[in-house]
């Protein structure tokens, strides 16, 4: 396996400034780099843990976690605040048909809480990756009822497992079949929404689907490729006709909703030969056994070279570089094929590659990564008992609601902050998921969003306990002089000290010379300490990863 043979021990390498942004003293410390990429941001605890073991051992430990179990104490206090995430879709529908904002909010908030607090950070990173890859915007009926089931049984169960299993689970998921309309596709008037995105987004990728001859400029070749793509979409649609779910209650009395489980509708299924991108089947019957025809197609797609390239390229972009080196992509592709689509092994190969090691600081943090890195760097604690005011209740417009009376205040705050940043969980409306291109997020408006978010993380996190600058710098044992004080704070929050010019900005905000004493009273007056923390969180050292 190419990557494994070329792997180096990250922690043996000496820290050096990343050369990504010339003039910015961004640390390339390997432990810091690993945690900037494979977690939602370093904490003092996670840094100590990585430094106490090899990178490979830390990755192995993360990959070995139980997909649906959070053993940590923090989560056990938070989970009761999200009652719908462990319910079946039918239970959710029955209990919250007239209070849709609860399931809508629960899964978003639970996701954000796990991103911020779970000890299984690599799992959460991959859950976010796959939730985006198989994006389901959870605001409409029936997806709103089914989303938490999809999160548990499709995404989390398979996030670090085999891609073939993940794909199959997604294709059987009522949330996906509802979101992309396959649930209502019938043989004599098919709906191709899901089948197209299955080929274009979930597996082969747009290049392979629409431009199978490569980037030809010959009009006849382009036209033939386009026709072949439409034929594949139409055929994949036919294969999957009948793949549906029981959303409606078929009987006369309560419960008035169906079980919201996968259901194959024989009478909807297309019969007759089908072929998709080199796969074909006689598909002779609409018998329930015909589900196996679709499963055969999914398995073929999961193992196809084009799918492998599409998936591992996206992983390499996510973990390593916006333009990943072809050597890395090829090596990761080999792992994907040799391990029968094992996601965890591909991720490990990528994270232990020399290309990864060389890429410190080369990526922007997307908003979701930026927000959680602030929460984690600052060590905010989530007060599970804090509730939103009961006088506020606007449950009918889940997308626009302010808050629901009596709900978890911390949950609402996290959703609000992530919404401000335009990246709340599952908030992207279309099946392609939030963009990965740095240009999408790095505008002047994006800067303002980040800086405002930084300020609010310090002063506006209702439902959280936010430490003071004094506490973060060491409490009663903190450095008293301005220079050592800002060093202690930047080290605590960002995992590194700042370059001289940017360090001077912090001293200038304090209005102190290097060795001048900064008292607690001075840090409290006029929110001096709070704005100091906001400046640190706003800095370029927090915005890159």
């Amino acid at each position, binding site marked *: 396996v190419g990557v494994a043979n070329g792997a180096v021990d990250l922690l043996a390498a000496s820290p050096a400034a990343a050369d990504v942004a010339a003039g910015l003293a961004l640390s390339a410390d390997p432990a810091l780099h690993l945690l900037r990429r494979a977690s939602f941001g370093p904490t003092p605890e996670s840094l100590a843990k990585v430094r106490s073991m090899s990178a490979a051992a830390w990755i192995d430990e993360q990959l070995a976690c139980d997909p649906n179990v959070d053993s940590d104490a923090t989560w056990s206090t938070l989970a009761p605040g999200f009652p719908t995430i462990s319910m079946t879709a039918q239970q959710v529908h029955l209990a919250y048909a007239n209070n849709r904002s609860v399931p809508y909010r629960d899964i978003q908030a639970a996701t954000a809480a796990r991103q911020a607090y779970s000890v299984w950070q690599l799992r959460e990173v991959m859950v976010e990756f796959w939730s985006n890859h198989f994006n389901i915007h959870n605001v409409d009926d029936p997806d709103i009822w089914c989303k938490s089931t999809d999160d548990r049984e499709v995404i989390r169960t398979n996030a670090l497992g085999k891609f073939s299993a993940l794909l199959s689970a997604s294709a059987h998921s009522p949330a996906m079949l509802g979101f992309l309309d396959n649930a*209502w596709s019938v043989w004599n008037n098919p709906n191709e929404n899901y089948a197209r995105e299955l080929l274009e987004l979930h597996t082969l990728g747009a290049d392979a*689907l629409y431009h199978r001859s490569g980037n030809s400029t010959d009009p006849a070749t*382009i036209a033939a490729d386009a026709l072949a793509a*439409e034929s594949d979409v139409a055929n994949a649609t036919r294969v999957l006709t009948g793949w549906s779910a029981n959303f409606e209650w078929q009987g006369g009395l309560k419960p008035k909703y169906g079980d919201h489980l996968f259901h194959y509708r024989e009478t909807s299924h297309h019969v007759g030969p089908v072929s998709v991108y080199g796969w074909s089947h006689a598909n002779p019957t609409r018998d329930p056994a015909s589900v196996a025809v679709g499963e055969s197609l999914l398995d073929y797609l999961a193992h196809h070279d084009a799918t492998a390239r599409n998936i591992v390229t996206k992983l390499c972009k996510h973990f390593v570089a916006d333009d990943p080196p072809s050597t890395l992509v090829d090596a990761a592709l080999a792992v994907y094929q040799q391990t029968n689509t094992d996601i965890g092994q591909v991720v490990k190969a990528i994270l232990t590659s020399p290309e990864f090691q060389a890429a410190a600081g080369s990526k922007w943090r997307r908003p979701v990564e930026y927000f959680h890195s602030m929460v984690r760097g600052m060590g905010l604690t989530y007060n599970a008992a804090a509730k939103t005011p009961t006088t506020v209740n606007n449950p009918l417009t889940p997308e626009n609601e302010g808050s629901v009376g009596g709900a978890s205040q911390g949950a609402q705050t996290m959703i609000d902050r992530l919404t401000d940043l335009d990246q709340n969980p599952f908030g992207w*409306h279309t099946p392609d998921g939030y963009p990965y291109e740095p240009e999408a997020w790095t505008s002047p408006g994006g800067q303002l969003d980040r800086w405002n978010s930084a*300020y609010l993380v310090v002063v506006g996190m209702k439902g959280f306990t936010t430490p003071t600058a004094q506490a973060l710098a060491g409490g009663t044992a903190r450095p008293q002089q301005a220079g050592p004080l800002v060093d202690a704070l930047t080290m605590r929050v960002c995992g590194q000290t700042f370059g001289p010019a940017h360090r001077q900005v912090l001293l200038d905000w304090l209005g102190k010379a290097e060795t001048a004493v900064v008292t607690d009273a001075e840090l409290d007056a006029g929110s001096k300490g709070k704005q100091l923390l906001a400046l640190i969180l*706003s800095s370029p050292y927090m915005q890159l990863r």
Partner: protein
Amino acid sequence: MVRHWEAPMTIDTDLRARAVTAGAGESEAAECDCPDDGPGALGALAPDSDLLALESGRRRVLKRLGVVTVGLAMARSLGNVAAAAEGPPPADVLVYIFLRGGLDSLNMVVPYGDPDYSAANRPTIGVYDSIALGDGFFGLHPAMSALVGPGKAWDPTTGMGDLAFVHAAGSPADTRSHFDAQDIIDRGVQAKGAANRDGWLARHLLSRAPTGPALRAIAVSSSTPVNLIGGGLNPVVMHTTADVSLRSVNATQVEPLLRRMHQGFAHPMVGASTTALDAVAKVRGLGSYSPAIGVTYPANGLAYGLKSLAQLIKAGANIGLEAASIDFGGFDMHKGMGTSAVGPLHDLLGQVADSLAAFRSDLQDIELATAQPYWKRVTVVAVSEFGRRFKENGNAGADHGHGGAMAVMGGGISGKAAGGGNVWLKDGWPGLSDAADRPPGSGLVTGDLQVRADYRHVLWEVARQRLGALDANRATVFPALPLAPFMGFAQPKT
């Protein structure tokens, strides 16, 4: 037997005649690459297309070096232009609305005169009570009534108005992928895989001037749309101007410190941060905004964005807004599109029409500097990545199609097309027939409306006639775009 394409063929002839007439004066000279003709002194300059037409790897390198590289080279190029023409030509403010998801344009601008537009093909979603636009063939979705009638953007009775539709328009690329089709149109290219990785609107703005005011380019969106990406343009992404603000305990002290915190290194973050802080200062100076008397914007995201843009437009040179790119989505209606009276398409089209009508009314205020309505220097363009399949699917929706319609509206737009309505066609209406015996070249292609008007020709007509684009920069803005006469809906800016 009356063949369904006969009526449109009549329109076709008239439209062609009009297109040639209207185009003869300005557009042929405008389209001429000959350096001795018309604006030929500018045409003699090689547009710096190589500079912007960089493949992605090199562009990233340039970006990391900072915008200076691009800026200096562009300044050299434009220095020559300035010497010849004394600065870039005057330009309208462009409001470019991307209706994402694949708008069902056959239900927006309904070809009710086409006999195939019938319940046989659209049993539940068909719009059979559209508002006639004056040509006896096309009608507008009833939800868009705010734009049609006396005193509104288009008056079919008088044949006057500043709203034009271009039908059977779209991308030459034969893709049914949302994401490829959007990407192609955002980048202003013919097909996927083109070298240009930046946005057409960014290229247009940068080719006019390499640098400009902080708020010269705005995206009303949650993230930067691809059409505004490129070359250190640094568009300000916002939902409303309320987003262009900064929280701190002390703006006077903190903002200069934030500026310093984002200087001293080479990274795109530096330019974005500087522009952000400049924009905050500018918007802070504007204060609150009251629209023109009697104008109430509806309550939707598009209207909120347009209201903010009206404020910025009325601030004039103090803000220097050149172009705004709005993303407005939700048009991907595979299921339950609704009817002409209710449903998601009805609601979204109503939001579009009501918002644009309010925006247009708001900008009828007179601008002191010009003694003209602000609207005189505003052009709105709306586009979607493709139209939807003509035949309704089994879920009262329609799958991805190809040909669609574009809308152009503004103080310099003349809506009236040759047929008497405000629907413009290139080479006539293709028709909606799927019959085996239809004339070659007519009717549906793989179930979809044909594309006859290349979206780039529509955009280039707007850019050249209203946005001060130079012929010399045509190949920069729309590389490899074949020459074509202007259709004539855009009047040359004076």
